[in-house]
């Protein structure tokens, strides 16, 4: 799928053409005195794959956590599929939305965590069927079929009766991907999905994510340190530093012709580290 790509000249690429599936508007986030995000504006078009790169502490992960409602923004708004996520409009004023509203909007979003967060007391299959059954109210048989289909997609159908503790890190992360896919989100967040893995296990997880990216009309927000992977998968790469978006554009441009000094030095440091 080919989505309109953003360039630096187009600040809000999809606006006016398609309702963005995610829209961050002037989002800031502080923890006490520490400002993590500082006025972020970012749109993700339906089906678009956006990779976020940047140094540690640049606020990349917080960007995903705000969208997944794991953290609440200090100011600004987030829209999902044209609807406000954290707020409701009452008589023209923005008020904090209640849990019922969050629950409804959150159904559009899925997330894969750095540390997998599989449910250790449930089998692999039940890790994948618990949410469709108890959240979507899906019949057990249908949930099972869908879960098996997703486990097949990540190459772990034969592990469905195993428990998470019996799996390698790479396998756990692939299950976590299947578990999130079963819910059919419109946008999937990957929060440094390979950062907790042994180097030899990174490849299998990235391969699965690439495969999903290739076939899917699901939008993706990929927080990653894997530059090669980002350039292969992403339609657009966003570079954050100091809580701001410093530069964004197609992978070729970001990696081949970086404009800002901060991105240039980040890429240099990254390459020499390798």
């Amino acid at each position, binding site marked *: 799928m080919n989505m309109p790509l953003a360039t630096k000249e187009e600040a809000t690429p999809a606006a006016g053409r398609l309702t963005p599936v995610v829209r961050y508007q002037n989002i800031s986030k502080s923890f006490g005195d520490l400002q993590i995000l500082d006025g972020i504006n970012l749109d993700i078009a339906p089906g678009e794959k956006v990779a976020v790169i940047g140094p540690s502490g640049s606020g990349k992960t917080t960007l995903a956590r705000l969208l*997944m409602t*794991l953290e609440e923004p200090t100011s600004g708004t987030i829209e999902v599929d044209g609807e406000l996520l954290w707020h409701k409009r009452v008589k023209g004023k923005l008020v904090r939305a209640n849990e019922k509203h969050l*629950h409804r909007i959150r159904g559009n979003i*899925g997330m894969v*965590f750095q*540390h997998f967060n*599989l449910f250790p*007391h449930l089998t692999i299959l039940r890790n994948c069927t618990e949410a469709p059954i108890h*959240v979507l109210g899906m019949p057990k048989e249908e949930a099972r079929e869908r879960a098996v289909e997703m486990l097949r997609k990540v190459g772990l159908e034969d592990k469905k009766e195993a428990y998470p503790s019996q799996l390698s890190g790479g396998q756990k992360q692939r299950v976590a991907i299947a578990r999130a896919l079963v819910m059919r989100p419109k946008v999937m967040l990957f929060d440094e999905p390979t950062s907790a893995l042994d180097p030899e296990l990174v490849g299998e997880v990235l391969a699965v994510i690439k495969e999903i990216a290739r076939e899917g009309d699901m939008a993706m927000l990929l927080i990653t340190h894997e530059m090669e992977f980002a350039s292969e998968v992403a339609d657009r790469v966003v570079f954050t530093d100091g809580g701001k978006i410093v530069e964004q554009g197609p992978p070729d441009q970001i990696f081949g012709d970086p404009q800002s000094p901060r991105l240039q030095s980040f890429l240099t440091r990254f390459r020499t580290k390798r």
Partner: protein
Amino acid sequence: MWNWEFAMSVLPKLLSVIHITIITTILAFFLALILGLLLALGRRTRLKPLAWAVALATEFIRSTPLLIQLYFLYFALPVYGIHFSALTIGVLGLGIHYSTYLSEVYRSGIEAVSKGQWEAATALNFSRWKTWTKIILPQAIRPITPVLGNYLIVMFKETPLLSTITVVEMMATAKMIGAASFRYVEAFTIVGLLFLLLSYPSALLVRRLEARISLK
């Protein structure tokens, strides 16, 4: 001195009330299990006044002797027109008292569940209720089952206190035998042995449970 003949003659009488001790323990334990969980959850509620009230009540009950609580329930409730049997009051008193201890046990189990589990439950859009029942509690309760089992044994050994509010269990029966015959040694020794006979195997069982859980 110890008289075997007398001991044998009072044994059936003591055995005939052993079920009172056991039933009281089990009922009080289940009450403590349920109430203890509610207290543990109550202390975590986002309604701050409720959380404080629960914390205050828990501390109050835990810091006062069970015996006084039993007397209070036994003598004070009828004043307010509430009439329960001695056995019911015994179960309530024992159950409520130990629920405050069990709530701490639950709390430790709940806090041991990693933050990532809560986040995964949110990411999959589980409601609060489903997050607790499907994700958090199953993981919280499993490692604390041996501790809960230990409290069952502790509560079992506390049941003689109920003899003070006229519950006719083993202790009260032994006292009555003593009062009637002026022979105390046999009856109390037998009661002690019966407690040992029941609690020691239970303790072994709990220890095995503990070993099985730590293996996983």
